[in-house]
């Protein structure tokens, strides 16, 4: 069975190559069916492997089995989290392909399958990154994922914002990836190995009595910079609102639903395998770094989210906020925290993708995703409105959605004031989306007055060729299925426990935590949902007081759209990360 793990990356790549090779002769339907077959096949493979992932599998690509515990090959891991992320990426790709069935403009002449092919490569890259057990291999797939994502973000070349957002995305992410590669080179210099587990052991062996030195710290900072750029931690996050707001909607579903989360997953994997030992970064320092950055990210994301009126940008900012919550949950380094984040991540992926899918419907119907311009205009889109409201509530943490279960478990793990961060941040993001629902789909409240805004989102070009006569069924079915899946994460009995077991089995701790609904958790979930509803109500009835744009102006001005600023922030972020993790090195 373990021989099949590398095929998770290979199968979609093969599909993509086949599509390009035959692209000129295929009809659009044939190309899209080919895409479905390969994407679905990979998803099925990922699920089969996932069901067989206890105990965790490993595979040496090329059959280079270790001799005397030394191998020259590349390790791929097939444990629960790795295969789970691969399955999540595959299923979301399948959903995005289904969603884009009738969605796009006619594909460019003679390039029928190119969008589908790019999506397939994206899927392969995400799967490859998820199962990578070798640091350089992880970098290769990380870069592949980025390259495809730039191209997909800029896919609508007629749109000025799309190409600009894609370039900011490209420059910042590439720089992050190069920083990561510098870190890998430093680790190789110290240990002479590339497999993550071997590097971890090498660091422990090389560590003197004083513990980690500056070299370990620098490699930690550089590698994490790359991953955190992808995960959009503050202050590496600036590219995300620019890119996610302008990418085609099916691509947004993947970017926000799973690619960003793969960054957090990478942090978890790399810290747990490489830096968790005595020669790595002490746990207290990692907790300080991740909790600080995570809290900053969550709060910044929530504030940015609340003050947006461009709906896709609002959803993108809410992804930033939730990434912050994931990082906080991972940062406390407890099995419960990991379990909670895993469930939260699964629930969030479904909800966020569904919300983007609904925003895509608005874009198609009205050529606009501007909350103010659309005020009351979408009353007739009942199904979409209901789904938008349900998604908003799930984002805020309405039980029994998967987001609520994950949030409750993570809240219990972090404890203390961090619990309040969870409640407030999820309430604000949920409240912002509820506010949009109330205004756009119900027409509640006074029509907001025009204010001086930089990005309104009212002059977007629709992505469909002209206006479709009616909304294709796929465009309403896909978000419904995604929401149902997110619900299932929370309600299917035993699913939470299953996820928790496989995460803990793969984690270094070995401790097992039990995951179930608790009264305490339900109470907190209810609190954040009610808070979200209250915030939304306040914003709709008293738009002036609750949503005055100038309060967040300093924060919003930082989001300048200037690539140079983003690069400067990246350097500051790397230095900050180093400062946060410094005490362990100095104290040792």
């Amino acid at each position: 069975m373990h021989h099949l793990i590398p095929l998770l990356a290979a199968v979609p790549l093969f599909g993509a190559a086949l599509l390009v090779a035959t692209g000129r002769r295929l009809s659009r339907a044939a190309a899209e069916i080919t895409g479905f077959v390969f994407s679905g096949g990979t998803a099925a493979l990922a699920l089969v492997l996932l069901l067989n992932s206890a105990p965790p599998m490993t595979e040496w690509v090329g059959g280079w089995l270790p001799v005397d515990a030394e191998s020259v090959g590349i390790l791929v891991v097939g444990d629960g989290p790795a295969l789970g992320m691969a399955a999540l990426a595959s299923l979301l790709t399948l959903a995005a392909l289904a969603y884009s069935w009738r969605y796009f403009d006619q594909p460019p002449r003679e390039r029928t399958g190119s969008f589908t092919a790019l999506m397939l490569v994206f899927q392969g890259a995400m799967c490859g990154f998820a199962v990578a057990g070798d640091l350089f291999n992880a970098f290769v797939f990380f870069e592949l994922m980025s390259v495809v994502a730039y191209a997909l973000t800029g896919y609508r070349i007629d749109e000025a914002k799309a190409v600009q957002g894609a370039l900011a995305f490209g420059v910042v992410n590439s720089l992050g990836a190069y920083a990561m590669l510098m870190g890998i080179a430093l680790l190789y210099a110290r240990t002479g190995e590339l497999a993550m587990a071997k590097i971890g052991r090498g660091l422990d062996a090389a560590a003197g009595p004083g513990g980690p030195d500056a070299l370990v710290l620098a490699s930690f900072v550089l590698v994490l910079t790359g991953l955190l750029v992808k995960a959009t931690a503050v202050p590496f996050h600036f590219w995300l609102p620019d890119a996610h707001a302008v990418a085609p909607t099916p691509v947004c579903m993947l970017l926000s639903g799973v690619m960003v989360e793969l960054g957090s997953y990478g942090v978890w994997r790399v810290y747990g395998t490489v830096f968790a030992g005595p020669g790595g970064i002490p746990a207290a320092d990692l907790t300080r770094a991740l909790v600080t950055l995570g809290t900053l990210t969550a709060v910044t994301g929530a504030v940015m989210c609340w003050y947006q009126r461009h709906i896709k940008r609002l959803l993108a900012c809410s992804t930033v906020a939730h990434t912050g919550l994931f990082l906080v949950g991972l940062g406390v380094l407890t099995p419960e925290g990991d379990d909670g984040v895993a469930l939260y991540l699964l629930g969030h992926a479904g909800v966020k993708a569904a919300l983007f899918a609904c925003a895509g419907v608005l874009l198609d119907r009205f050529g606009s995703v501007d909350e103010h311009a659309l005020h009351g205009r979408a009353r007739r889109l009942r199904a979409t409105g209901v789904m938008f409201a349900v998604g908003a509530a799930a984002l805020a943490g309405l039980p029994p959605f998967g987001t609520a279960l994950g949030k409750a478990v993570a809240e219990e793990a972090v404890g203390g004031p961090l619990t309040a961060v969870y409640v407030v941040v999820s309430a604000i993001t949920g409240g912002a989306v509820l506010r949009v629902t109330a205004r756009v789909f119900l027409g509640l409240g006074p029509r907001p007055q025009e204010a001086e805004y930089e990005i309104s989102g009212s002059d977007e070009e629709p992505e469909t060729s002209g206006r479709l006569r009616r909304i294709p069924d796929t465009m309403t079915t896909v978000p419904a299925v995604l929401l149902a899946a997110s619900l299932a994460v929370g309600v299917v009995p035993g699913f939470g426990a299953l996820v928790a077991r496989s995460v803990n089995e793969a984690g270094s701790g070995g401790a097992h935590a039990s995951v179930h609904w608790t009264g305490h958790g339900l109470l907190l979930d209810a609190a954040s949902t009610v808070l979200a509803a209250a915030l939304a109500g306040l914003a709709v009835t008293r738009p002036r007081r609750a949503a005055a744009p100038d309060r967040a102006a300093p924060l919003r001005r930082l989001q300048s759209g200037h690539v140079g600023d983003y690069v400067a922030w990246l350097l500051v972020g790397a230095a900050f990360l180093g400062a946060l993790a410094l005490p362990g090195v100095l104290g040792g």
Partner: protein
Amino acid sequence: MHVLPYLVAAYVFLTGCYGLAASRNLIHAVGCLAVCQCATYVLLLAVGYRDGATAPVFSDVKPGSRPVVDPVVQALTLTDIVVGATVTALLLALVLQIAKRHGTIDPDELRELRG
């Protein structure tokens, strides 16, 4: 000499970052990104070097007769070079589209995505 190659790599990386942040022309910025990447090549190969060793190619050296430098970092660098070239190409393609849609490639004049 013991640390010079590493310091050069670090210097080149930071110089590229400075150029990227200070650039007034997006094509120039993409060039600076390529400079940043050169730092990774230098660092990788410096890490793999071994004094008095020869290249790890045994077509005219008898195996075992002389020490060879680390072949793994060279393979990694090769991969890295390809990655660099492709990223440069893709970013330049995006810059061309920006020039068409915005009429400028000066990042200071691109004012669409704010807030």
